[in-house]
Each structure stands twice: as structure tokens, then as C-alpha cells.
């Protein structure tokens, strides 16, 4: 374990958190397979760089997101203001750092917690079955039917509600996104664990008198573990996209809070006059979601339980050779 820490502490910490040391022996294989995929490693590096930048980036600039520079209002990028200034004369770099941090925060929290909720909910459904399953499935489908967008709009719309005065808008958005983001994964986990319950090794464990809770923990969770990891990156991407989309049309994050979506949305009315205000946050958003997508591909290969790869971890190549043979 210490040896692994030396290689890549971040990835190992992430795995330990997700897998909860049930499959600790597998983690080195997974790590090796992941590292073999250059695209995925590049994605991880970009994502980590952006995260670090969003936390320490503020120290590299003399400006912060509140100071107005009255001599440079709506100026293009220059030596003094790295990314230019906004229409209000605020340094765009400072706003970007702040906005990226909020966006990453929303993505990570929603991605991680929604998968956790989905895993608990889905496994409970499959574990109890029968009436409990029916009722819980009904609740789940009813939640899917609610248009999340309207609920976000209602929850974050202006007004004098006590909840809204006490909570910053990004926290409110996190809560609403959480409530509406776990259902698809929960359904998938339910169907997967139900089919796993029929498998021989689960039956054998049952006949040996292993308590059901331990069966869930020892046999079900490791088998859906790969899916959970994938859904975390997918959930993070989804949450970041949802935040940008909602803030873009003016619901979701509200000024004075800043996020990538707010920055992009504010700049749309004057793209022709102030192009840098629109394209810079948009590029950062692409980097963020793009790096996650690149990682996703590598993670899928690394966690694929059917992959017997010792050589190449790319499943794609396997298909290719199979196809060539069939010709």
C-alpha cells in the first residue's frame, strides 16, 4: 500500500475511498491498466491541474473577484489583467478561478453523493425485493417524472424564503441536483444486483449460512464496483454540465456567486464585442468536461471485470482483432 502511495497518491486515495478496501488486491491491476491508457492519464492530469489551479490560482494574481479596476473596464487580455476584465471592470482571471472552483465543487459533491445514494437505494431494493421493491421503484419512477429543471427554477428563484436567505445559491443547486440525479444509476444497480443474487456464488454463500448483509457487502458490492466508479465520473460530468446549463439561462447559480455557467451566460449578449469573456470560460468548461470524458474511457477499460488484459488494456483492440479474424 505504501509502495502504491508513492506511485500515485491521488488515484489510490480515490480508489480506497470508493472500493473501501474490499478489493484492495485488485487495485494495483486497475491502477496499472489505467496508467497504460495515455489519454486517460492525460485527462486525469488536466483535471487535477484545473482543480489545483482553482484552489491556489488566486495567489498568483494581484486582483480578486470583488475589486473593480475603474481604468480597465471591458478590456481585452493584457499584461496587467491576464484574461482581461469583465464589463464591471473585475479581473476575469480571478472570476475564472472562483467559478472553476464552484463548478468543480458542485460536480464532485453531486457526482460522489448521488452514486452513494443510488448504491444504497438500489441495493436495498434488490436485497429486500417484493413489496419494498415495488414501493421504492414507484417512488423512483415518480422522481424521474418530475422535470428537474422546473424544480431548480422554483427552488432558486428570487423571493423572501428563509431557506434561500440562509443558503448560498450553489449549495441550494447542489441539493436540488442531488435529489434529481441518482435515479438512473439506482435503477441500473437494482437490476444488476438482482441478477447477481441469482448467481451460483451468491447461492452457495446463502446455503453456507453467510448472513445476507455480508453477502451484499462481500459479493454484490465488489461486482458492481466498476459500475459505481464509472458512474462517479459520469455523474461529475453531468453535474458540471447541468450547472453550466442552468446558470446559462439564468436559473441555478445566482450573482454574486460565480460559476463557469454564470460567466458564460453573462458574456453571451455581447459575444461580438467582448469575445474573450465568452470563449475563455467556455474553453475551461470544455477542458473540465473533456478531461473527465477522457478519464472515463480509461476507467472503463481499467475496471472492466471481463477484461483479461495483461498486455493492452484497450478493449477496442480486442474487437479489432476479432473482426479481422472473422473476415
Amino acid at each position, binding site marked *: 500500500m505504501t509502495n502504491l502511495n508513492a506511485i500515485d497518491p491521488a488515484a489510490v486515495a480515490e480508489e480506497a475511498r470508493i472500493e473501501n478496501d474490499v478489493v484492495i488486491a485488485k487495485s494495483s491491476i486497475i491502477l496499472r491498466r489505467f496508467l497504460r491508457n495515455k489519454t486517460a492519464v492525460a485527462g486525469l492530469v488536466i483535471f487535477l491541474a484545473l482543480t489545483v489551479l482553482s484552489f491556489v490560482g488566486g495567489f498568483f494574481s494581484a486582483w480578486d473577484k470583488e475589486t473593480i479596476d475603474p481604468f480597465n473596464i471591458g478590456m481585452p487580455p493584457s499584461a496587467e489583467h491576464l484574461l482581461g476584465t469583465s464589463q464591471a471592470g473585475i479581473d476575469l482571471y480571478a472570476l475564472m478561478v472562483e467559478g472553476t472552483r464552484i463548478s468543480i465543487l458542485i460536480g464532485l459533491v453531486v457526482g460522489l453523493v448521488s452514486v452513494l445514494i443510488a448504491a444504497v437505494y438500489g441495493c436495498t431494493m434488490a436485497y429486500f425485493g417484493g413489496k419494498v421493491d415495488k414501493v421504492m421503484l414507484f417512488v423512483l419512477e415518480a422522481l424521474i417524472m418530475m*422535470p428537474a429543471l422546473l*424544480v431548480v427554477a422554483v427552488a432558486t*428563484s428570487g423571493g423572501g424564503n428563509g431557506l434561500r436567505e440562509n443558503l448560498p445559491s450553489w449549495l441550494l443547486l447542489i441539493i436540488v441536483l442531488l435529489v434529481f440525479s441518482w435515479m438512473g444509476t439506482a435503477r441500473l444497480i437494482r437490476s444488476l444486483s438482482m441478477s447477481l443474487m441469482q448467481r451460483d456464488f451468491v447461492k452457495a454463500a446463502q446455503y453456507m449460512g453467510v448472513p445476507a448483509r455480508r453477502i451484499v457487502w462481500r459479493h454484490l458490492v465488489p461486482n458492481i464496483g466498476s459500475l459505481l466508479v464509472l458512474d462517479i465520473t459520469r455523474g461529475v460530468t453531468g453535474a458540471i454540465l447541468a450547472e453550466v446549463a442552468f446558470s446559462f439561462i439564468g436559473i441555478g447559480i445566482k450573482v454574486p456567486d460565480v460559476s463557469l455557467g454564470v460567466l458564460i451566460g453573462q458574456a453571451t449578449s455581447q459575444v461580438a464585442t467582448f469575445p474573450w469573456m465568452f470563449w475563455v470560460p467556455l474553453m475551461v468548461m470544455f477542458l473540465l468536461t473533456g478531461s473527465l470524458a477522457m478519464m472515463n474511457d480509461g476507467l472503463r477499460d481499467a475496471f472492466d471485470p471481463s477484461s483479461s488484459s495483461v498486455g493492452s488494456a484497450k478493449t477496442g483492440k480486442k474487437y479489432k482483432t476479432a473482426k479481422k479474424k472473422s473476415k
Partner: protein
Amino acid sequence: MFRYLAKRAATYLLMIFLTTTAGYFLAVSTLQPALLEQERMPRPTPEQVTNSFRLKGLDPTLSPWERYLDWLTAVVTRWDWGRSPNGAFINAEFGDRVWISTRLFLASIVLTLIIGVALGVYTAARQYKFQDRVITSYSYLVYIVPAPIAYFLVQLGAINVNESIGERIFFVTGISTPGLEGNAWVQFVDMLAHYTVPTLAITLVGWGTYQIAQRQYLLDNVNADFVRTARAKGLTRNQAITRHALRVSFIPVAQSIAFTIPAIFAGGFFAEKIFAWPGVGSWSIDAIALQDVNAATATLAYGSVIFAIGAILADFATTLVDPRVRVQ
């Protein structure tokens, strides 16, 4: 089969009722139109505000439960969805806007489905060839772009085309030219010019999901035993795919329609907002900004109904292509 569908429909009705109820309570407890009235000039007294709201059936002094009961009896007995704070009737407002939204989405949904599935089959048949790589990369690229930003970029592109040609070919906002005179052909061309950009935008963003799903499921089946058997019996690769693999691989895609129709609907909110179509989506967001409880609930109910229709269509499509469901 019809009994099965009827049973599903009944379940969805119950769900629509529950989501609408939950939505009503959420709206009633968070939206406070009385606060906006305070900003009017001259400023009305609290008594005047309460009085005018009571006349419209929006009495803020009643408890949420009492208001819910009133609202529910009106909906069930008279099909009256209430009034907005400014006095407009929801039913009348809704009719026009549903029609506008439907016109916007219908073409896009059909195009999205057909193009997505067709390209999915096309790329699966040419796996890892040049065309497959280009199309699939495009679908993954679309996946990381938020819908409203993609629409906005399409809009920018259309504006650029207009400017470079020096003539207004595409209308990037609005539903028709106000006060346009002319015969049916002029009207038709005008409608087409307004339709093109939003429909193109929604379709371009939409088909990626279907393409990836269809390609994936078809590839899973292309190597299956029954397809190999068909090829061993002398069918060409294309014949084996169209006669055997395609049908099986369409089942999960058909089931996913239920979940993508609400997504297109949600994307429609963005599309309506960005292309300035006065449909249900943009209306509902405006209504919520105006603290309009009844309009918010009505649009929420509409969203649930759209989802239910999508789900029932998906069930229907599944029964059409999947013999196992038909037998049950």
C-alpha cells in the same frame, strides 16, 4: 398487450397525480407573488394585495393544504388550472403555448431518432473505420457540451452565415415574422426560415446519444451466436445484421426513448429560451420568475404527462419489436 399497456397507463396517471401534488406544495411554499406586488408603483397596501389575490383564487392567508384542496377541486371538477397573479387564466395561456412547443419538438424528436439510429447502424457496420471514428467522436463531443451552449453556438453560426451572405436567410429568434403579408407560399417560406435553425440545433445535439447506444448494442449482437449461425447459413454480413441483429439491438434503444423524451423536453426549455419561441418552456421559467404558483404547477404536470407519453410509447415500441413481451 392492451391490458398491459392500460395497466401501465393507470400507474403513470397515479404518478402524474403525485408529482403534480408534490410540485404544487413546493411551489406554494416557495413562491410568494405578494412580494413582487410590493415593487409596484404606487405601492399597494397589504390589504389590497391580499384582496386582489383572493379574487384570483391565490389567497396568501390560507394554509397550503387549504389552497391545495381548492385548486384540486377546481382542476378535477371544472378542469380549471387557476389564474396567474396578473389575472390571466392558465388554461387559455396554456393552449397556445403547448401547440408552439409541440411544433418545435415534434420534427426534432423524429429527426433525432431516425438519424441517431441510422448512424448507429452505419457506424457499427463500419467499426473502427474512418467514418465510424468521425461520427462516434462527434457524438462523444456533443456529450460534453451543455445543450444551451450548443444551441447558442448554432445560433452564432447561423448569424455568421447570414452576415457572410449579406442576406437574412435564417431567422435565429422568434416563431414568425410579425405582420408578414403575402400568399401561402410566402408564409410557408417564412415559417421554414424560422424553423430551420432551432430544429437543426436540437437535432444536432440530440442524435449523439442514440448513435452511441445503437452502435454499442448492435456491436454486442453482431458477434452473437445467432448472427454467426445466420452468416454460416449463407447470408451476407449486411443481411445478417438487418434481419437478425438489428431487431434485437433496437429493444434497449426503444426502452431508452422514455428517458430521452423528457431530456429533449428539458432541452426544449433551453431551446425556447435561446431561440425566443414563446412555448411552454420559456413561459414556465418566466412564470416562476414572476412567482406564479398555478402556472408553475401546470407546466410541471405537463412535463410529467410528456414523460408518461414517452414511457408508454417506449412500452409500445418494445412490444412491437420484442416477441417475448408480446407472448406474456
